[in-house]
């Protein structure tokens, strides 16, 4: 049985506002409620990824940790936002660490359930897929920008560096 509480919470989020009642009931059936305390990890960089989280309450910080253990702030996400959605299309491990900055209540959607919804022609799955595509393009832009910054630290008198920088600017 679908949990009416989950359907109710989904309905409150803009992402699900237009979803038809029947599909919302199906989503409520496959999604799981998850609670995180301050400091709990929703996901960790380099670990296997097979689900995403829709934040209902709370605040989640997205961090990039490198091999030396330095953490760089990428974003802070709040209610109505989603973390880890790249896992629904890409097989690779997590590309960032997500940590709860306040008591967080979220709804978890697994890749296998998303695949099922997508294959069955779910309107929500289609719309969410379009959103994920835009997210990936945005992340590519950010990556190109960072690459440009790293190259910016090079010898500016060398033509090749200026050349690559100009190309990357165009690519943004």
């Amino acid at each position: 049985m679908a949990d009416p509480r989950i359907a109710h919470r989904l309905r409150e989020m803009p992402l699900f506002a237009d979803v038809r009642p029947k599909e919302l009931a199906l989503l409520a059936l496959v999604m799981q409620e998850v609670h995180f305390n301050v400091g709990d990890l929703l996901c960790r960089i380099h670990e296997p990824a097979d689900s995403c989280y829709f934040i209902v309450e709370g605040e989640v910080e997205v961090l990039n940790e490198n091999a030396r253990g330095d953490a760089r702030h990428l974003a802070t996400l709040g209610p109505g936002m989603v973390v880890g959605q790249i896992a629904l299309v890409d097989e690779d491990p997590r590309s960032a660490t997500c940590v709860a900055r306040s008591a967080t209540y979220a709804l978890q959607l697994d890749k296998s359930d998303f695949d099922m919804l997508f294959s069955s022609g779910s309107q929500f799955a289609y719309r969410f897929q379009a959103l994920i595509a835009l997210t990936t393009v945005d992340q590519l832009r950010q990556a190109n920008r960072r690459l440009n910054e790293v190259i910016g630290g090079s010898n500016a008198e060398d033509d090749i560096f200026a050349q690559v920088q100009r190309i990357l600017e165009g690519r943004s």
Partner: protein
Amino acid sequence: MALLTAGDALRAVSLFETLSDEELDTIGAIAHFDHFNEGETLFLTGDPGTCMWVVVTGQIDIHFDVEGTDVTLASIVRKGILGELSLIEPQARSASARARTDSVLLRIDYSPFAELRDALHPAPYKLLRELSRLVCIRIRSVNQQIELLSRMTPSTVERRKAITDILTMLWKPAPHHG
């Protein structure tokens, strides 16, 4: 050649491999064959990008002009694609493209693609799914280059080589995937 339908041309391309015959025909119906003569320009850096192409025959050079010096970044041949991110979101072209030989390409415009998407037809969403995967692969390539460059001391020969490699990495034809 004369008997090749748009659907057939798409079927050969890995980006389209998750589409059914019917879905290939749906995309095929909004696609158009373009002919370019040797030396002809498809687009220039900064032009609005509102379509993608599949190379049916011939060869397209992706190139970039730096103060009069023409640098070829990649060559796209049969079954290769170019401008594909325009289907996710129209954006300015990041390099120029020119036909190296007489070429036949199949063009998919953003507008009719977006109409199929808005009509909730499965085909555009399957393509968006594959395109998302492609973008994720590119993000990883860029991040690897960032890691590599961050670890190098400035002004070394290796550093210069790594940066030159970025050029070819960014425009190399899409890998086969899925």
